[in-house]
């Protein structure tokens, strides 16, 4: 592993530093400003009770869930885009997110939804959708636009199902379902943090084990086989691991849209390095989520869920991507 390219290293470090700064900023800012010194003592565990409560119970768990879920989404998006050889192969595009939302909403409405039920429902919904899409697309279609188009079809059907479920619910339940469906980080506690942290700690190293092999697979199946890479295992293990990462993220933070799509794009542009760029994408994902959540909390006078910010910016990003692409093709 001595082949870490210097530019990628610098970019990742710079992102990590930016993430730290942003984190410190988030922890100090709010209705109850806490000076940086108090934040640090609160984390270490010896601060005035008020600062202790605001930082330790309210702000820190929320921040950590944002960092960890964002990192998971970024890494998973990088894996999916690399393995499908498709810059759009992200969970948002292929209906995974909508399927998870269907599962989560169903759980909220059927089981009067505790957090655990919602999480399990979301994970199950997402997994079933992913399997269905893989079956429909077939092995050959993964790289092409077929993946995206089948995903669009599936999402539309599932959105109708979601809409139908909402008309069937009591208003209070519908409200909770919508609030969750948007992707929301408010009210996270330490159980959320541990769940995402454990998943990330297990699955991210697993993905990193396959990092080199995934880079070789990008050269094509035949070349990779000739280089001694087990093609099937290199596909299946990282894909399963990234589905796990996304499922955990969605379960704990709701389906935050577009982070898994945009983070790997941005990371690749910054590092200018071929290959999956999993770590840079993970750090970028964390940074994007934290910044979006900060904007969601402080940009307007009302607090918004983070998903609304990423959704709006993601939509705008995708439109501008299409326009830029068109320009460059014409030229």
């Amino acid at each position: 592993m001595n082949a870490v390219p210097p530019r990628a290293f610098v970019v990742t470090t710079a992102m990590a530093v930016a993430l730290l700064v942003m984190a410190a900023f988030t922890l100090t800012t709010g209705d109850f400003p806490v000076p940086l010194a108090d934040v640090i003592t609160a984390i270490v565990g010896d601060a005035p009770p008020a600062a202790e409560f605001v930082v330790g119970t309210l702000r820190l768990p929320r921040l950590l869930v944002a960092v960890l879920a964002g990192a998971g989404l970024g890494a998973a998006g990088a894996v999916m885009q690399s393995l499908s050889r498709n810059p759009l192969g992200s969970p948002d595009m292929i209906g995974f997110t909508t399927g998870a939302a269907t599962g989560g909403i169903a759980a909220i409405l059927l089981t009067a939804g505790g957090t655990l039920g919602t999480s399990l429902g979301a994970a199950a919904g997402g997994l079933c959708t992913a399997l269905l899409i893989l079956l429909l697309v077939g092995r050959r279609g993964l790289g092409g636009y077929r993946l995206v188009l089948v995903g669009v079809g599936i999402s539309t059907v599932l959105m109708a199902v979601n809409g139908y479920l909402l008309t069937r619910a009591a208003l209070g339940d519908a409200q909770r379902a919508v609030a969750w469906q948007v992707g929301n980080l408010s009210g996270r506690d330490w159980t959320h943090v541990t769940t995402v942290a454990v998943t990330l700690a297990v699955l991210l190293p697993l993905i990193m084990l396959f990092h080199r092999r995934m880079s070789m697979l990008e050269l094509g199946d035949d070349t990779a086989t000739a280089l001694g890479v087990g093609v099937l295992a290199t596909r299946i293990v990282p894909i399963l691991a990234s589905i796990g990462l996304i499922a955990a993220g969605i379960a704990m933070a709701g389906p935050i849209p577009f982070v898994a799509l945009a983070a790997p794009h941005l990371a690749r542009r910054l590092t200018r390095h071929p290959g999956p760029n999993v770590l840079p994408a993970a750090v970028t994902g964390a940074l994007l989520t934290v910044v979006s959540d900060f904007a969601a909390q402080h940009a307007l006078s009302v607090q918004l869920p983070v998903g609304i910010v990423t959704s709006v910016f993601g939509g705008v990003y995708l439109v501008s991507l299409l326009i830029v692409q068109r320009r460059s093709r014409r030229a």
Partner: protein
Amino acid sequence: MTRRLTGLLLIGVLLLVTVLLSIAVGSRTIPFGDVVSALGGTGSPDDVVTVREMRIPRTVLGLIAGAALGLAGALMQTLTRNPLADPGIFGVNHGAAAGVVLAITVFGVTSPAGYVWFAFAGAVLATLIAYGASAGRGGTNPARLALAGIAVQFALAGVNQALQLADRGALDQMRYWIVGSIANRETETLWRLAPFFAAGILLSLVLARNLNALALGDDTARALGAGVGATRVLALAAVTLLCGAATAACGPLAFIGLMVPHIVRAFTGPDQRWVLPFSMLLAPVVLLGADVIGRVVARPAELQVGIVMDVIGGIVFIAIVRARRVVHL
């Protein structure tokens, strides 16, 4: 020629049958004899109300909205040379939805007849954005179009949800509006929108000849004397009029505009002078058929036609994607 006549005959019969079914079948069972007498105004008062004040307006709305969406779909597919073009996939629905949410939350409009205009404006805006982002010279690539639609959808859905979360009343109204339906929509709405439907239908039928020329490529079209730019702009105007009006009247109804032209082309070939009127006749069959299905599958409750359409349409959409390599039309 005989193929077209057979097709026309078939569609005519189907249309008649679905209209009759739509009047005769409902979540409340009324024997056929009673339906006929209720139509004439005699019979039990309950039956008369059900048939004359609920089923007939519903059927009329289905006919008009269906025709509009079918036409819009056929126009869109020709205009973008894209076999997957459909108002729903363009993000039109979310545009209209954003309009309605804004009307409810910001402007305090409460009656459906009142938020028609907002839905209309939103639909027009979303169409323009999605088309603008995806169109290049000589048509759009199917996937780019779908992507532009998705992007618009995501951005607008974010706004919609934010507004709904902030306002409980809006959420309550929206969740029923967002699943498209032709039941219990006010007749007044239909009257207000009638001029838009009429203008859109007329405009698209007049454009058929020029669209044929456009299908041969811009240069050939110019050589044949068709104004390329003007045809595009007018066709896009017709599409927005038709989709906007239909969505404003019924709420979002996806996939009709996608499926119908595909079926129609099997009978007519690519000639727009046939494709457009045929689509206009067949689409109401599909819409009313789906509506009737929705009335009977979940008795005594009803499944809104928007949901039935989405499920059937989604399956057809995936079948089209899988069946062929999607290329420029």
